[in-house]
Each structure stands twice: as C-alpha cells, then as structure tokens.
C-alpha cells in the first residue's frame, strides 16, 4: 500500500525539519545581533558614534525577523 504524503509519520518528519530550520535561523539572527551589539559598544567607547544608529536599526530588523519566525512557529506549526 503506498504511503500518502499526508501520512502522520511524514507530516511529523516535515514539521520537525521546519521547526529545526526555524530555530537555526533564529540562532543565526541572534549571533548577528550579538556582533552588532559588540560593534555598537566598541563604537561608543571609541568615539565613533556614527555606527550606533545603523547598528541599532540592523538589530531591530533582526529582531523583527526573529519575531516573525517565532510567530509563524506558534501559528502554523
């Protein structure tokens, strides 16, 4: 008997894969934010305040991306 794609085992396996991928993406965004924070602190200490605003903006984008991924995780998976 052929196993349909909607077989519970296949569906669970796909969901597990997507869950893992989403978690990995969020971890990657977190690492980028850590790097941005370190750069902002370095710039503040070195008197190069011009980089702080772009770093904050980029960190905000990363946070929005992480939040959207989390939201998708809660709603759809």
């Amino acid at each position: 008997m052929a196993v349909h794609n909607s077989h519970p085992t296949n569906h669970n396996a796909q969901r597990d894969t997507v869950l893992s991928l989403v978690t990995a993406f969020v971890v990657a965004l977190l690492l980028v934010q850590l790097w941005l924070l370190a750069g902002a602190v370095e710039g503040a200490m070195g008197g190069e305040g011009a980089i702080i605003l772009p770093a904050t903006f980029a960190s905000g984008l990363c946070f929005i991306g992480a939040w959207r991924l989390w939201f998708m995780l809660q709603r759809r998976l």
Partner: protein
Amino acid sequence: MATSDPHWRADFPVNWEDDHYVTRREFTTFLTLISGALFLGTGLVGLRERWRRRRAPHPAAMRIAQVHEIAIGGVKLFHYPTPDDPCLLLRLSTDHFVAYSQKCTHLSCPVVYRVREQQLHCPCHEGHFAVETGQVLAGPPRRVLPRILLALKGEDIWATGVEV
C-alpha cells in the same frame, strides 16, 4: 514511587523529567526574547552615548608646561582633563608639540614614548602608535590614541581639549 519517598510525594506526584523538558517552541520563544533584549541593549548604548555627549562639558583649558621645560625628543607626563587621565606631551622638533592620552586603547595600559622608533609603544600587548597622528601601527589596539589639543601662548603650552 519508592517506599522511602516522603508521604507528600504521593499527594503531589510531579514528573520532574517531563517538567524540565524544554520543547523547541519554548526554546525559540526564549531565543526571540533574547533577540529583543539585544535590540534593546543596542538602542540603550546609543541613547547612553547621546546623553553622555550632551552632559559632558567641554574640558577647560589647562596650562601643562612651558616650552623650555622639554628638550627636543623629550616627553612630559601630565593629567588632563581630570587627574585620572594621564597624558604625554612630546616635543618632536623645535616648535612641534603633540600630546596624547597615555592610556592604550586596547586595555588601558600606559604607553611609553620611544624616541628612536618615533613611536608610542604599549608594552602590555605590543601595541604601536604613530607619534604624528596617534594611529595604530601594529598590535591589538583598534582605535587611535585620543589626541590632546594644544595651544601655544607665548612660552606656555596649554591643553584645550581632547580629540577622540
């Protein structure tokens, strides 16, 4: 449940393994909260820097030396703008004076003037700075040495500000 367990365990049976188990959703929620905290932290760094610049007054001018005190190739230690800020005044030629903060921009070790190499050298981690500009020449420092702005008024050398 083991017979040696206290009686209240029978009344409140908690499966601690299941209780401590963290699902991927919960872990991702935690990561998202960390992401928000990092974003807030970056924003706070910017706000703090802006507030500090508004509050910090321009340092007052201070007489630090007289021209005849320092020989050509000589160096004088002084403190500016506060007693906790050691600085070096260097005389590179007859009428060419430069001054820098003595704190290495790596980990704040005191830098020393090397006349022969015409460099400022940090002995802690072998950082080297150019005497003319304070730029990093070698070593782990990543930022230029803060430069002390000087003004020559007759025979007196005055420190008038700090350029980071």
